[in-house]
């Protein structure tokens, strides 16, 4: 806090009233005025002196200044709504810009959503196709199985058991033969596994000649084999992998006669 005497000595109050002080000095004087009532009285007197001097030395201002001043102020007042309009326009601009930005973001969002949905749709379509294929396969399999079981259950179908000889004593093959429908099915679930270089092959004996009925897939419940007319017996041999043109008689593991064959 500046000392009271310093303020008086430096004419700080007089200079404060005249508007000569800088911001820091103004702040100091105002704080001193709050603190020292004597300075406040002095300040009020100096203000009064200034005003009295001013009024005593007043000079009539030309009349046109007042009218020009009022005109200027009313024109500035009229101009101010324009400023409001501009600021309103600015506000509208920002509102419009915000809406546009939101729409853009919305569009981007919906576009990406659409793309995602389209991709999902494609996946679903693909899955549907795969499922259709699987369904068709299963349906085909079912139809096959149904037809096979229908064949087994058919009264015209005969069942033959082919037991393994000394070469393959554990082997058992069940054969279902329907001469009416000319179909042969075999159950190979009880055929012992062979090495990779050999397969089991089935043959039909027709008038002493062995005719190929196909290579047997092992461990199958029902395998369709080639039906041979007028077969007298069914024979199974062990042949090189993939089958043979002629049976290797030494490798015959089982056979059965078809008694009812016409």
């Amino acid at each position, binding site marked *: 806090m500046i000392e009271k005497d310093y303020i008086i000595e430096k004419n700080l109050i*007089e200079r404060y009233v005249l508007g000569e002080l800088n911001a820091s000095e103004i702040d100091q004087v105002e704080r001193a005025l709050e603190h020292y009532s004597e300075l406040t*009285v002095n*300040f009020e007197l100096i*203000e009064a002196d200034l005003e*009295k001097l001013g009024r005593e030395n*007043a000079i009539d*201002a030309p009349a046109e200044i007042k009218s020009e001043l009022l005109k200027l102020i009313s024109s500035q007042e009229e101009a101010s709504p324009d400023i409001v309009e501009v600021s309103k326009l600015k506000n509208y601009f920002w509102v419009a810009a915000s809406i546009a930005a939101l729409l853009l973001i919305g569009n981007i969002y919906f576009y990406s959503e659409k793309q995602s949905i389209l991709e999902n749709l494609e996946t679903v379509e693909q899955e549907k196709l795969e499922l259709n294929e699987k369904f068709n396969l299963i349906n085909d399999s079912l139809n096959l199985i149904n037809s096979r079981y229908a064949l087994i259950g058919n009264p015209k179908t005969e069942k033959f058991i082919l037991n393994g000889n000394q070469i393959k004593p554990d082997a058992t093959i069940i054969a279902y033969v329907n001469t009416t429908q000319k179909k042969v099915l075999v159950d190979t679930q009880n055929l012992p596994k062979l090495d990779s270089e050999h397969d089991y092959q089935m043959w039909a004996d027709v008038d002493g000649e062995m005719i190929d009925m196909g290579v047997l897939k092992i461990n199958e419940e029902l395998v369709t084999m080639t039906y041979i007319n007028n077969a007298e017996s069914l024979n199974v041999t062990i042949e090189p992998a993939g089958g043979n043109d002629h049976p290797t008689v030494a490798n015959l593991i089982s056979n059965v006669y078809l008694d009812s064959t016409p």
Partner: protein
Amino acid sequence: MDDQTSSFVKDLTMTEQDKALIERLQNGDNSALTLLYDNYSNALYGVIIRICKDEHLAKNILQDTFVTIWKKIDTYDNQKGRFYTWAFQIARNKSLNAIRKSKKLIQTEDLSVYKDKSNNQSNLAEDLNLKGHINSLDAHHKQAIEYVYFNGLTHREAHEEMGVPLGTFKSYVRQALKQLRESYLKIASYVLVLMECLG
């Protein structure tokens, strides 16, 4: 001096009516500006024209001063001082800025343009002679007040102008104001006595 007398002196010029006008203007009532203009324009014009010594320039500055008063009225705080002090400072600053610009023009432009203006100034000078109680002061006191209150000089500029030390100049101002105040108080006391008698 007691507070009652001080308050009397203050209220002699800063009336409640003016306070109300300022409040109206602060609340956006522009009609109050017309009345404030009527109350203060001549005193401010006297200050402005004595600083710039140019009638045309003084007119513009006075108008500009009142436009600023109108625009900045919200920043005026009557707890910090009189309206006249605030308006005086605006007028003084605008006048000083205007003559600074004029001086720059004079330095850069053809001086002959301003010859007529100088003649006008000498005619004007008679009108600008100070009136009232200031004339009862000693010459050096009157000069000191004239420099700082009417010519817009700072204390520092004015002491150089008078050719006296700054400290001496400051005491001139204080003594001058004291003398003025005493002469005002004589009137104030007379008014008080008159009011007592009439009451």
